[in-house]
């Protein structure tokens, strides 16, 4: 049977406010346990929440950035459940009246077409603390530093049809939230994580299949893997005549499998009701418009500018604008070398290849944009050829250093001395009579291809440093004279 995959994502974005959603405590990562807490975060008797207006501004900025409905009236609700790292016995969230309503996001698919993914809503909520099960000898430690840090939960429609689309959607969200500066987007530290609702159904069937919710996935790579392995699991079950159980599952990246989360025993009834300690949020058009006006250039706008201003292809432009840091990097390279096309080739080519091989994100690459720009300058002024440039890049990646010094130290400078190249060309022609004869016997149209052999020989003789353009021109001229 042929199956259709249906995926919806709930993305949790930690907002980059200085203080927490409902208290003045610092909202940061990595402090000693329970040092970033106030009476409110500790759930002390009598403590009351005060809503952080900066979190409101950020949520509204997000709503305007994805062209969603920003709700002028929204309400905090309490989600009641007991857990040791939930100090009040409830999480303050939004239920019936979220701050951001319907919106959408366009993603680019592998075939370069554009697909629109619906965004159901985005709401503000406070994070819980952390339970630390290790290091306490059979006991559980509670760290409430994260308690009440602000989250924006962005819920998509079940519009994605494969794992790659889910990754593209997540990447695009990442680009937007980092571009508008509402989150650092640091997935390793949990600043952005997602739950994926995954189900399958026979192709052509209208009704959705039973879904599994994959919890707390915190890297792009894991989203893809987790969804794929979950889809396989579901297909296996259904094709064996079994049934999917609706449940939350955890992706184990070490074993590359999903498994049911420690069951919370019974179905939770969260008993949502409007939080009586907080007033409804009331905002007006002027407030929303002012925030809309102050938005920076968004990924789609940047992509359009890369096409219109820098002459990039639509594809390159969209790849390069997919992340704010990548786009910033690219523009920094262009600033040094002034050649957008070459810069785009290097960033989407060699640089991306290395990033994939070494599994690092753009903000961690060892080659600075300035160095890459200088390297491209040396290609453009014929100091090195592209092969030499790759060697320099490799050295920059692995050992750092300055571009010119590396070229010098490794003898990568391109030989453009016409006399020296001519001597090498003459040598190669003299030592390859058989190939010269074949060249001469060949039809004129086919000779171009046969030049490759001679090119390779000369480049080899020059240890790759000969200027390929000059070699090519000389070879053609001299061989044609022999014919």
């Amino acid at each position: 049977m042929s199956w259709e995959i249906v995926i919806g994502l709930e993305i949790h974005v930690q907002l980059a406010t200085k203080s927490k959603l409902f208290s003045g405590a610092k909202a940061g990562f990595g402090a000693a346990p329970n040092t970033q807490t106030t009476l409110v975060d500790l759930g002390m008797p009598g403590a009351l929440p005060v809503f952080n207006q900066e979190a409101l501004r950020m949520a509204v900025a997000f709503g305007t950035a994805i062209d969603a409905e920003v709700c002028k009236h929204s309400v905090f609700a309490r989600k009641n459940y007991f857990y040791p790292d939930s100090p009040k016995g409830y999480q303050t969230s939004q239920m019936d009246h979220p701050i951001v309503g319907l919106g959408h996001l366009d993603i680019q698919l592998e075939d370069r077409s554009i697909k629109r993914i619906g965004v159901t809503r985005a709401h503000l909520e406070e994070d819980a603390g952390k339970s630390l099960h290790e290091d306490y000898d059979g006991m559980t430690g509670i760290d409430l530093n994260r308690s009440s840090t602000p989250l924006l939960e962005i819920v998509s429609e079940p519009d994605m049809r494969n794992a790659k689309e889910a990754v593209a959607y997540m990447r695009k969200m990442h680009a937007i939230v980092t571009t508008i500066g509402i989150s650092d987007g640091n997935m390793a530290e949990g600043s952005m994580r997602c739950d994926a609702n995954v189900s399958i159904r026979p192709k052509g069937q209208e009704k959705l299949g039973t879904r599994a919710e994959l919890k707390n996935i915190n890297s792009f790579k894991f989203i893809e893997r987790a969804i794929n392995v979950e889809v396989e699991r579901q297909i296996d079950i259904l094709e064996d005549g079994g049934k999917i159980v609706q449940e939350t599952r955890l992706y184990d990246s070490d074993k590359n499998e999903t498994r049911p989360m420690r069951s919370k025993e019974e179905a939770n009834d969260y008993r949502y009701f409007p939080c009586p300690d907080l007033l409804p949020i009331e905002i007006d058009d002027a407030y929303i418009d002012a925030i809309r006006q102050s938005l920076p250039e968004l990924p789609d706008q940047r992509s359009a500018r890369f096409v219109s201003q820098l002459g990039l292809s639509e594809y390159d432009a969209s790849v390069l604008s997919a992340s704010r840091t990548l786009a910033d990097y690219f523009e920094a390279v262009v600033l040094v070398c002034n050649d957008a096309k070459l810069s785009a080739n290097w960033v989407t080519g060699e640089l991306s290849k290395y990033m994939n091989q070494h599994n690092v994100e753009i903000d961690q690459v060892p080659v600075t944009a300035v160095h890459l720009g200088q390297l491209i300058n040396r290609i453009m002024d014929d100091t090195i050829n592209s092969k030499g440039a790759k060697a320099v890049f490799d050295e920059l990646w692995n050992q750092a250093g300055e571009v010119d010094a590396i070229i010098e130290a490794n003898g990568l400078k391109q030989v453009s001395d016409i006399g020296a190249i001519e001597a090498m060309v003459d040598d190669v022609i003299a030592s390859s009579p058989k190939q010269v004869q074949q060249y001469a016997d060949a039809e004129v149209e086919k000779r171009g291809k046969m030049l490759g052999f001679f090119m390779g020989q000369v480049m080899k003789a020059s240890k790759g440093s000969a200027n390929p353009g000059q070699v090519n021109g000389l070879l053609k001229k001299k061989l044609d004279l022999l014919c």
Partner: protein
Amino acid sequence: MTHKTLVQIAKDLAAGKYSSREITQDIIADIKARDAVYNSFISLSEDLALGQADAADARIKVGNADILTGVPFAHKDLFCTQGHTTTAASKMLANFVPPYESTVGQRLLSAGAVCVGKTNMDEFAMGSSNESSFFGAVKNPWDLNAVPGGSSGGSAAAVAAGLVPAATGTDTGGSIRQPASFCNLTGIKPTYGRVSRFGIIAYASSLDQAGPMCQTAEDAAIMLNAMAGFDEQDSTSVQQETPDFTAELNLPLHGLKVGLPKEFFGPGLNPQVAECIMAAVKEIEKLGAQIIDISLPNLELSIPAYYVIAPSEASSNLSRFDGVRYGYRCDKPENLMDLYCRTRAEGFGTEVKRRIMVGTYALSEGYYDAYYVKAQRIRRLIKDDFARALSQVDVIMGPVAPTPAFDLGSNTKDPVAMYLEDIYTLSANMAGIPAMSAPAGFVNGRPVGLHIMGNYFAEAKLLNIAHQYQQVTDWHLQTPTSNNVPVSNQEKGA
């Protein structure tokens, strides 16, 4: 020292008749000597109080004193006091020492008032008789067989017995006004949002409001001046300038329009209480007021609606008492679920558990619309009733409770009978309007309070009326011992 008003003590302190330290010591000694009978205090904060008294004396000496500087008072044990146990009259918090002071407490301390201790109350402010306290029932100083009312019963008994001149209370459904009525005190529940809730252990957040319980309207105005004010730590506190509540005390009542809702004088009302109230209304009419019959048609619905909304909020507010971070924790929990279940089963009393269950049920999936949402609609109707009535009249008067203080133990087996006690008080909390009780006579030796309700932020008007009434009556000056009937004799006679 007993039964001196705040104003009298303030005058004495200013005149140097005694120091704050002296009166504080006297009061604490008096409480130690006499409170065993009433059980109105849960704890005394002697060391803290003496420190505050010394600081007050220093202020008085340098002429930097406020009217409350050096004046002793007591806090209902629902107000967090930094460094001193705050129990909410529950086993759950019997060992809880807050690391911070409530906003109201801080404001009183800044004014120089001296907190001598924490008064008894119904557990987590849930009750109308002060019989649900983990620390035992409180007895009404007017009649030791009677309840003092609740939930601020300890505050009421302490002031009525002359142990302290004033005390703080909280009022979620009548918890200041009903005990004030039962103990012959002047107590006011301000407009919702007038007084910060920060640092007051929450019962039902959308209804809770703190206020003073005193011997006179003037004292209540002085206390409210110190307690009220916008607090950025309480999002529901109102960002509005706080008036001087004493400023209008002496205005004449000419032309005042007083509404008497017919629903306040229905069949459930004790006829003798009705007589007291009508006599008081007459007195106010004599002062120049015009009496107008009005109707609050949805009054009766306030009981079922309140007993859905308040428990719903309480079920969530009390979730934090889980044995994890502070307060009671059961012995040797076997696992997390056992920790939760036994901590809460052992730490909460019966009435608290009942309300948590009711609230949890009302908020549950499938019942939420039928209960919580419907109750909120009724709340809106009640609010509209008051808006309509208060467009015709300046204030509304009636009884605070259908009966005078009832006997200890008489309602404890029937929670619904207890809930019906709140019929006249709940609606003011539902609407958020200010309301107060002022002494208006006695029925068989037990006090009766006149209920005065007004429009939003009309506290000064209410206090003005009570003060003017107190200029022509002396009910508020009566004390349990002033008619020379010793309390113990009353007990025998009853």
